[in-house]
């Protein structure tokens, strides 16, 4: 019971930061809007969905996947800042469950991410996106996004714990998420990519997640390549989330204990 209260208090502490850190607000909430507007109205006119269908529908369902990894820099910088300022040590020396500190931060990130999803939904509805699947499929899409976000959040925690420097953590996180984002099927169909890059994009977890979202929201998927993760995108996305969680939770906990 105490641990639940501790996690709630520490999550509340992190959530209070959101309006007080403009860059965090931008990364979590505004960046997806920028991408929707940029691709829907600037690049979108030059992009056709193979097999037909509305590009705005295709794009917005992909942007949901993109917003999942957009939180990595925020959480890694937050964790590194807490270490750098000595706050992490102060919390670790308190008579509270040590896991509460990281769990509180992770829960706060998930709450923030849900707020980000609402922003993408509103933005998507404005540009013409709409879920065409059943209510159950739509809820399953959001559940899948949150499950994936849980695994991804731990990657951010681990980067923050390893790097321990806010600027360094930000740089590393961005250098991971940008290639992952653009070498995926979030914005454009992967079929047009040259050999080598296409295979990377086909096996990129974000491509599987974007494809899963498109299937569940009933958006156009384009011509789905004949590779296992994209033929079974929901299962593949769950597997990626499980793999990230299985790897990065123990790594983070181990690192946290040895700070």
């Amino acid at each position, binding site marked *: 019971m105490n641990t639940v209260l501790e996690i709630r208090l520490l999550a509340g502490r992190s959530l209070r930061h959101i309006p007080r850190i403009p860059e965090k607000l931008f990364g979590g909430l505004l960046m997806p809007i920028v991408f929707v507007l940029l691709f829907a109205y600037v690049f979108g006119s030059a992009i056709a969905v193979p097999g037909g269908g509305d590009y705005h529908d295709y794009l917005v369902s992909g942007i949901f996947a993109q917003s999942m990894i957009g939180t990595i820099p925020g959480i890694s910088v937050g964790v590194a800042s807490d270490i750098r300022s*000595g706050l992490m040590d102060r919390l670790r020396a308190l008579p509270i469950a040590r896991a509460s500190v990281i769990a509180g931060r992770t829960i706060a990130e998930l709450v923030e991410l849900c707020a980000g999803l609402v922003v993408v939904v509103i933005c998507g509805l404005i540009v013409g996106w709409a879920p065409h699947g059943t209510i159950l499929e739509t809820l399953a899409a959001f559940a899948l996004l949150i499950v994936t976000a849980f695994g991804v959040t731990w990657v951010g925690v681990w980067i923050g714990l390893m790097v321990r420097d806010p600027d360094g953590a930000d740089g590393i996180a961005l250098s991971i998420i940008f290639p992952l984002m653009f070498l995926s099927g979030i914005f454009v169909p992967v079929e047009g990519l040259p050999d080598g890059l296409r295979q990377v994009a086909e096996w990129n977890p974000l491509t599987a997640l974007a494809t899963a979202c498109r299937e569940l929201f009933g958006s156009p998927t384009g011509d789905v390549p004949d590779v296992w993760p994209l033929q079974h995108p929901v299962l593949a996305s769950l597997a990626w989330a499980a793999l990230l969680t299985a790897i990065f939770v123990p790594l983070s906990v181990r690192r946290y204990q040895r700070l």
Partner: protein
Amino acid sequence: MNSYAVRTDALGRRFSETDALRDLDLEVAPGTVLGLLGHNGAGKTTAVRILTTLLEPTAGRAEVAGHDVARAPAAVREQIAVAGQDASLDERLTGRENLMLLGRLQRLSKADAAARTEQLLERFGLADAAGRLLGTYSGGMRRRLDLAACLVVRRPVVFLDEPTTGLDPAARADMWGAIADLVTEGAALILTTQYLEEADRLADRIVVLSGGRTVAEGTPAELKRRVGERRVHITLDAFEEAARRLDAEVDPRARRVSVAAPNGPDDLRRILDALDDLDVEEASLAQPTLDEAFFALT
């Protein structure tokens, strides 16, 4: 063992090939202050990190409030309060929110945490700034809030790691008053510092660390005595002539000569007689300072 708030026995910590701390033996009674004194890298912070359960020792053992730091770290954490080298609080929370959070995490009810927070903000002169983000606080205000954060819940053992580093003399004097109050209330306090004046003023006993090892231990007076005998200091314009007559050490910038005075006042009289024809401006008989002791010992 339990009569000590802190006790260590041959405590050590090794990082790869380097001994950050070696063979540290400490005994700190409740209601007393132990000063850990040393240059940067002497091992002070390593010792504090071990005693506050943030780092595991690689040799020896340590007990805090009767609990072994390696075997019962959770029990140790119930008994300690810690202020690190930096004002280790949340920059993005207000002063009030920081104290409230720490109170609530330490199981105070919302009402008790709020009452304690207001009491501490008042006591440390931070009531007017309580609603401002910590990031807008001056160095002195941050340090005061940091110390207040140690007192949200009273603990029998308090660790302060260089609590006045970077503060101006007035802010430092304020902090010393607050720290002295803490000890009056019965807490055992371990204070690391690079300021000899601070150790001299606050500590009942001092352990001098150098290169991870204890190089001296005792009360401030004992450490000063260990460095050597009393000295006579004479300030005068004809300091070169005085130095020649007395075979004394000279500080030309201060126009001062210094001579050993093992016989105290008798030596002072003898020296003044020897300089009778020179115009002596000032003469004093003094114990070595803790600064002199520190530099002689490290």
